């Protein structure tokens, strides 16, 4: 299973490296979303106060596009069918695609945090760094797992562009809440103490493990025609 | 009894929507069953 996962992940990342769709389109979109928030919310102090929430909102919106892209690559020439026909272990395909998606999400989160520091004057304090990295990793793991699972569910369906956000948004809500609160604790926005962040990391980790396991089991039957 | 409007509204909405779904289901069942004879329905 892990061999197939490594293969699929390497393949996905190479496609991204070759086509640069994410780096040329999704990342600019995410940064643009940060800027649009600034236009909309306008008040400096408000922006700084809600910066973590905005970062994770931008990540969530970008996730919709990243998942669409990940499965458009598979369905454009029937590769997903070919993977099924070749009897390739679906759990491996799931983990591979999730790992690739996680890598893209993680780089996006880093970039958006930098964006938040520049645009919203958020300060990243040194002692909060460990919490920040752990929270970001478990959040992106959760988002990648649930995104790949629901991406597989809607892969071939008509109207999946609108169906995927409808399905994903409610499920991703806990990650949005937990990640935002954990990041607030890490950055110390509005005086949140460092210790307050760790229970949220617990929520993020549970979410990631839960959907990692469910995805590995359910992905095969889900993409079955 | 103040707030009668809100209370009445909630009951009307509740029972009304249940009745609406009931009526829609019955009509749909009737339309779909038009081509079948009574015995063919597994629940008869």
């Amino acid at each position: 299973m892990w061999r197939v996962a490594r293969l699929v992940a390497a393949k996905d990342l190479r496609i991204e490296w070759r086509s640069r769709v994410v780096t040329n389109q999704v990342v600019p979109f995410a940064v643009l979303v940060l800027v649009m928030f600034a236009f909309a919310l306008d008040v400096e102090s408000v922006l700084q106060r809600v910066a973590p929430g905005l970062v994770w909102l931008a990540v969530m919106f970008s996730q919709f596009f990243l998942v669409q892209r990940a499965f458009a690559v598979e369905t454009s020439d029937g590769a997903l069918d070919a993977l099924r026909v070749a009897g390739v272990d679906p759990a491996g395909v799931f983990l591979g695609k999730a790992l690739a998606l996680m890598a893209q999400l993680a780089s996006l989160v880093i970039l958006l945090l930098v964006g938040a520091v520049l645009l919203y004057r958020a300060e990243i304090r040194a002692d909060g760094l460990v919490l920040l990295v752990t929270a970001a990793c478990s959040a992106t793991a959760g988002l990648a797992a649930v995104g790949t699972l629901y991406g597989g569910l809607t892969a071939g369906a008509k109207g999946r562009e609108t169906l995927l956000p409808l399905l994903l948004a409610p499920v991703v809500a806990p990650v949005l809440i937990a990640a935002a609160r954990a990041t607030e604790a890490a950055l110390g926005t509005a005086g949140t103490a460092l210790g307050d962040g760790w229970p949220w990391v617990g929520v993020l980790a549970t979410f990631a493990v839960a959907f990692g396991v469910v995805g590995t089991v359910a992905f095969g039957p889900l993409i079955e025609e | 009894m103040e707030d009668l409007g809100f209370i009445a509204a909630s009951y009307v909405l509740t029972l009304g929507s249940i009745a609406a779904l009931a009526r829609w289901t019955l009509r749909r069942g009737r339309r779909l069953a038009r081509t079948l004879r009574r015995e063919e329905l597994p629940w008869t």
Partner: protein
Amino acid sequence: MAVTTQPVQTERPATGRVTATGTRVTRWLAVACWLGAGWLLLAGLVLSPPDVVQGDSVRIMYAHVPSAWIAYLAFVVTAVSSAAYLWPRTRSLTWDRIAGASAEVGVLFMGITLVTGMLWGRITWGVFWQWDPRLTTTAFLFVTFAGYLAVRGLGGSHEQRARRSAILGLLAVVEIPLVHFSVVLWRSLHQEASVLNPNGDVQLDGFMLFTLFTGVLVFTLFYLWLVLHRQRVLWLQDHHDDSGLDEALSARRAEEGTP
């Protein structure tokens, strides 16, 4: 398979009586439902005393709390029948239809819970919506199962639809504790003094508690009646699609006859 010609029926067609999907059981159930609804209205609006704290707004409780209970019951039934469908030994499309019917009725009741919750909130808190853990989880469930119903609408064969919805049905229920826990944890950060723990934790006793339980009973009857009928309509739907199969099979064989 458009139903064009109306086949000649010697005896009355299935719809001779009032409903196609009705049986004696569902007719008695229907009678019980409407009687119960009548009694609930009487008890809820007239007989039961106004609450000492809330006044008359407690009457909305008799619709709000039971509908929430029934919605949760409906989603549990959906999850159980989804699991039953996925379990190879008990796999049959009936489970899938029960899951679908129960989810539809569940979404209806969850919608009722949300609306009555907002109306009740408007009177007691002066605001339609409050990010209270219970209400938030309710909203989450409503949207999740709306998505479930959307997925049921996707194309593909009955088995495909059944398998996809079964996995989603189970997934939705697995998500409830995750969502509920994170919302509770989230709300605990905001210690705003809510004088009254919102919706449902109002201490009802005596006749008011009795009315509440009547509400639950009546709504359960409605739920059973609706799911029974809805599930049969889904059977008719599938049968309608499949019956096209036999005709198409014979048509194909006829087609083969003429090269």
